[in-house]
Every structure is written in structure tokens, then in C-alpha cells.
């Protein structure tokens, strides 16, 4: 069933690509998978959008340009790796010239959007930025019927709390993954199985100074996740919803970790450098770094989700409320969710695709950065695995449960992290 759908979608893409190669400026979704899109678009009123202003039920003509704020690797045009190019065909078909601005952190991303009204059309926001963007009115609701592949998104990612509020969709999920434990295979011949390898000072004495940690306040959640398992008496239920005592315990753990950290990383290129030049041999990172480092072949790194679980990200393509080219952005969302585009971005970025229709191709026909059984290994269709990851979200004073507003808000996370880094 899924295979047939994917094949059909691929066939239509091929047809569209062929038909539009003469430079037509039609947005792809309007000419996309036939039948369903036209029908659902006209019945857009039935969508679960409760906003007062009716949302567009069709994507209008493209405005000729598209400016995106992205995580590095979410809009490849073949210049980094010639096999990974999903921007050029989009530009040819939609007539929307794509410019991108990569962000290093979620905070960076949020600030770019807030300070760049009228400049950016969309953003690939993670959960710790997406709810802030929604709360601040920075992103606009969208009609998911305009995204033909929406129905193929994993059920748990169609309306997740980080992009759907009160039944209103503020974007479409594009992919997700975990913050893995990376280790240099030469320095660690036996695979470390626990986050204790970067938090337990007794273990770290053997490789003091070779540890890396993420240089962002959200990393406090990683410490909290470890403590939830290590010190059950603290009663940590959610690493982003921490009472003052729980929060202090996590901060103390990171302060104890500080002398063992040779270099914190904020930009992924820094982490790649440091693994390759030997400054770092173990620490948290993304699959993207693993792929790049192992492709460079200077050192070999392994990666895993330790026994305590992991924090992670789930990213959403969001439409700016001040977008100068909204039609191009909607066309991009529809494009980015197509199975073959999802296959490329999932392989290149190293994450589970949102659209599971991409899985047959990912599993059996890997590209340079892919591998066999990709979706199984990333748990793309595995809801219990998804539930095992604590996805980034913005810490708020409101714990979201019976504890009321006793949780530590993000502002305090920032201050605490300044203190941790100051050593």
C-alpha cells in the first residue's frame, strides 16, 4: 500500500519534472499528485483549522523568491554533495529562487525570525523554538490540505503539540532525530552505553578534557534526563519541566562536568573539527556530524542512544506571519514533504523522515549518506521509539501538570548556563 503510493508519487514527480523543465512557473502542488489534491483543496473548510480568518484553499502563483531560515542541511542545492539536490528542481518548477540563512541554535533561529519581519518566508524550527514562534504570533496557520503528502506523515507527527495548537496547524513536520552519544572508536574500543560517560566524574577522569558538550541552555535537559534515571528520588518526569530543586541538581551536574569539557560546541562544524583533530573523543552530537566525520575518514566515530534515552529534535517547516512570498513557502512545504525529497533530506541531515512514504526508497536504495534499512534504524515508523525521545521544547514556568507554575522558565536556563560556562 505504502509502496504503491510512493511509486505513484514518484511517477507524478517525474511527469511534473518533465513537463516543467521548459521553465514553467507553476507551483508544483497545483500540478502535483492528481485527483486527491484538487479534491481536498476545494473541501479545505473541513480541515481542523479553527482560526477566524479562512485559510487559503489553493496555493497561488509563486512570487519568484523564497527566503528560508534553516538548520544546515535542510535545503541542499548539490553544492555540498552533488547527489543531494532538492533545491534546484524546486526552483526550476516553481520559479521561486531559494536563498537560505543557516542558524546555529534554536535561539538564533527565533531571533532571526523576530528581527527579520518581511525578510524571511519560512523556518525549519525545532520544538524549542516552534512554540515560542507560535506564542509570539511570528508564524501563520496553514491549511494542511495544501500539502498532498500530509496524509503520509507518521500519525504521531501529523498534529504534534510542538506545531499544532488547539487543532490549528502552524506548519508541517519534516523530520526528527535524537541527540546521540558520539565517541571516537579508537579512544573507546568498547562502546560506552550510558550518558554516565559524559556526566560521571569518576569515569571521565580517564579522559579529562576530551569531553564535549552542547553550548546551549537546552543542554541542561540532557543532564536532567540522565538524573531522571540516575537519581529517581528527584522525581524528574520531564527534562524540560523542572522544579527548582530538580533544576539545581541538573545545573550542579553540569558544573561538575565543566572541568572535564575540553571545548563546548555551538556550531556543528566546530564539533566536526574537534573530533577530527583529537580535541574531543566523546560527547553529544547529531547523526549529521557522524556522517560527515566518517566520510572525511580522519577518525572513525560511533554513535548510539544510551540506556537512559536521549533528548532530540522534531523539526517543522513554518510559514512566517510576515512572509513576503507566502505562496512560494507553501509550495516549498508541499515539495519538501514529497517522498523523494524526504529521502534526500533525511539521508543528508541524518534523521528520520516525517513522511513514511519515503521509507521504501530509504530502506532499499540508499544514496551516498544513506544505508540499508534506514527507516528501521532511525525508528521512523516506530511510535514507541519516538515516545522514548524527549523532544526539545521551550521550558516554561507552567509545568503543564499538577505542579502548576513552579517550573523554571527558559530565561533562568540561560542565566544558569552562563554560570556553567563561566566555570
Amino acid at each position: 500500500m505504502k509502496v504503491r503510493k510512493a511509486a505513484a508519487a514518484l511517477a507524478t514527480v517525474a511527469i511534473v519534472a518533465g513537463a516543467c523543465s521548459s521553465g514553467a512557473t507553476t507551483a508544483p502542488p497545483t500540478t502535483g499528485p492528481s485527483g486527491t489534491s484538487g479534491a481536498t483543496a476545494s473541501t479545505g473548510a473541513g480541515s481542523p483549522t479553527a482560526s477566524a480568518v479562512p485559510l487559503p484553499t489553493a496555493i497561488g502563483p509563486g512570487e519568484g523568491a523564497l527566503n528560508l531560515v534553516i538548520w544546515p542541511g535542510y535545503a541542499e542545492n548539490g553544492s555540498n554533495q552533488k547527489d543531494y539536490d532538492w533545491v534546484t528542481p524546486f526552483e526550476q518548477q516553481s520559479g521561486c529562487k531559494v536563498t537560505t540563512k543557516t542558524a546555529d541554535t534554536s535561539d538564533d533561529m527565533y531571533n532571526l525570525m523576530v528581527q527579520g519581519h518581511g525578510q524571511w518566508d519560512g523556518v525549519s524550527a525545532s520544538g524549542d523554538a516552534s512554540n515560542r514562534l507560535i506564542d509570539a504570533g511570528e508564524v501563520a496557520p496553514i491549511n494542511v490540505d495544501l500539502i498532498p503528502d500530509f496524509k503520509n506523515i507518521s500519525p504521531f507527527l501529523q498534529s504534534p503539540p510542538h506545531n499544532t495548537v488547539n487543532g490549528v496547524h502552524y506548519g508541517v513536520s519534516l523530520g526528527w532525530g535524537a541527540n546521540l552519544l558520539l565517541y571516537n572508536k579508537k579512544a573507546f574500543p568498547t562502546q560506552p552505553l550510558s550518558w554516565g560517560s559524559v556526566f560521571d566524574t569518576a569515569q571521565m577522569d580517564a579522559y579529562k578534557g576530551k569531553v564535549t558538550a552542547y553550548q546551549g541552555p537546552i543542554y541542561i535537559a540532557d543532564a536532567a534526563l540522565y538524573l531522571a534515571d540516575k537519581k529517581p528520588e528527584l522525581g524528574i518526569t520531564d527534562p524540560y519541566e523542572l522544579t527548582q530543586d530538580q533544576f539545581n541538581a541538573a545545573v550542579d551536574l553540569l558544573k561538575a562536568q565543566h572541568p572535564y569539557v575540553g571545548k563546548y560546541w555551538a556550531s556543528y562544524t566546530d564539533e566536526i573539527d574537534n573530533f577530527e583533530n583529537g580535541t574531543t573523543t566523546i560527547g553529544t552530537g547529531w547523526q549529521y556530524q557522524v556522517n560527515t566525520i566518517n566520510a572525511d575518514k580522519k577518525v572513525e566515530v560511533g554513535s548510539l542512544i544510551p540506556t537512559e534515552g536521549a533528548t532530540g529534535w522534531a523539526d517543522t517547516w513554518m510559514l512566517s506571519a510576515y512572509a513576503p512570498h507566502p505562496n512560494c513557502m507553501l509550495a516549498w512545504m508541499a515539495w519538501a514533504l514529497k517522498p523523494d525529497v524526504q529521502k534526500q533530506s533525511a539521508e543528508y541531515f541524518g534523521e528520520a523522515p516525517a513522511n513514511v512514504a519515503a521509507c521504501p526508497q530509504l530502506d532499499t536504495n540508499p544514496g551516498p549518506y544513506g544505508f540499508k534499512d534506514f527507516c528501521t534504524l532511525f525508528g521512523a515508523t516506530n511510535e514507541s521509539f519516538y515516545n522514548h525521545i524527549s523532544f526539545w521544547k521551550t521550558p516554561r514556568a507552567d509545568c503543564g501538570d499538577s505542579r502548576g507554575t513552579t517550573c523554571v522558565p527558559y530565561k533562568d536556563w540561560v542565566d544558569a548556563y552562563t554560570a556553567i560556562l563561566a566555570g
Partner: protein
Amino acid sequence: MSAISAPGPQAAPAASPRRRLLGWFARHRRLQLGTLLALPVGWLGVVYFGALILLLLSAFWVVDPVTGQIVRDWTLANFQKIITHPDPYLVIVARTVVIAALVTVSDAVIAFPIAYFMARVASRRTRNILAVAVLIPLWASYLVRVYSWRLILSQNGLLDWFFTQLGIPGVGDIFGYSDLSMTVVFVYLWLPYMILPIWAGLERIPDSFLEASADLGGRPLMTFRRVVLPLAMPALVAGSIFTFSLTLGDYIVPQLVSNTQFIGNVIFSQLGVAGDIPFAAAFAVIPIVIMGIYLYAASRVGAFEAL
């Protein structure tokens, strides 16, 4: 056509408005100067001081923790927070000031012999070559220079490799991402800003002073200590203003070659990560105060006469 015929002798009695305006300016010299300077001075006043005043004002506001919006109520909360949390904030200030002072002293010690050689010993040709050599690093991008130092000092970097070849392993571990590496990079980066003022200062000392000292029986060391050094002091202090203030305000070198934070990193993260402009402004007041004290002390030594 008329513009060309206007300056002709027959046109003189009926002066054009343009000529009358120019004539009026010629009679009011001070106004002429004022009009000329209005734009640059206005820029300095409005844009520079205006921004500075706005910054200082916002230091007395706070950010609403819930909405993230700035609340324009006068409060000293930001300054209280700095003083009641000496652990991160004052520690960072102390670290920044100590390293800035270290960099300044190191630069002075390295720059003085070079500047002295250029000013008083080297031939005209050698001096020109040296001057170009001192200035050439300034042509390359600051980031390129910092990154190249990172390659040299990193744990398996050039320096480590070199000493390993000589049979001395572990040099890379001493440097790596450390305060030491950061100090070395700063010393390198700001060295030209120390050499140039000292060179200019030493060139201004007349040869006759040194001859007079020798005639009075002053040996070279005595002459240096009692004549050259006091006369070069203002230039030395002028150079130190550059090296000290540039180090004090930098936040890129700490990020790239060390694992610690400077005043600038805290300001940057308060602006970029937390979006807390008032606290960032309050913290930015600290280097302003430090530089104010430094400049006052420098003016007492007569540094500004040598600029």
C-alpha cells in the same frame, strides 16, 4: 551657458544668488567651518552618542519573563543581579580584565624593542621593510588570522607536531582550547597597534637628548631608563589603550580558541540567546566604566599628546 558667463567681468554688478551665498560664507568664517563639520559631528553626536545613551537607558529597564517584552520601568534590578551573582558575572569581568592586562604588558614588552629598532637603529630601507611587515597582518581578515592560530595551537596542531618531531610530546595539550592560547592570539592580533604608536613616539625624541645624556656621563642603560623611557611613556600608554580596549571588547577569540567566556560573550548570549537587551546593556556598562577609568589614568600620564 549663463553659468559660464556669470563669472565674466561684465556680470559682476548683478551677483547671482550663489555668489552672494559664497560671499556671505566668506565673511562669516566660523559659520563656514560649522556647516562643513555639521554632518560628521552630527553623525558622531546623534548616531554614536545617541545609541550609547539609549543603551545606558535600557540598562535600567527589565524584560518581562512571561512575554519577553521590555518593560520600561526604572529599576536597578539588572545591576543588582550582577552584584548579587558574583560567581558568573564578576568572575568573568575579572578574567577579562586580567587577560587584557596580560596582553597589554606582553605586547608592550615585545613591541618596544621592535619599535626602538625601527625608530633609532634601522636604516631607512630596513625600516620601510619592517613597517610593511608590521602592517601586512592587518590586510588579512581577522577571522582568517584567528582560525590559522587555531590550526597552530590545537591539540594535534602545527606546534604540537613540531615539538613531537623534536621529541617533546604534549605541547598541544598545554595550548589547545585554553586561556593561554587565547592570550597568545590576542598578543599577536593587537601587536601592530602597540608598535606603531611607540615607533612614532620614539622618533620624536631628538638625538641631541641622547647625546646630552652621554655627555653628562650617562651609560646606555641609564640613558634608556632616565631619558628614553620617560619620553616614550605617553606613546606606550597610547598603545596600551588600543591593546587593552580591543581585548576587553572581544568575544570572537574566546569563542574560537578558548573554552571560557569574556564580558563580550555574556553580552552576546544575553542579546542573542536570551533576548534580554536590558541585562546585556547593564553588563555592557562595566567595560565602559573600566575604559573610563583607564582613559582618565592615561590622560594623566599625557598619553593623548602622543596620539
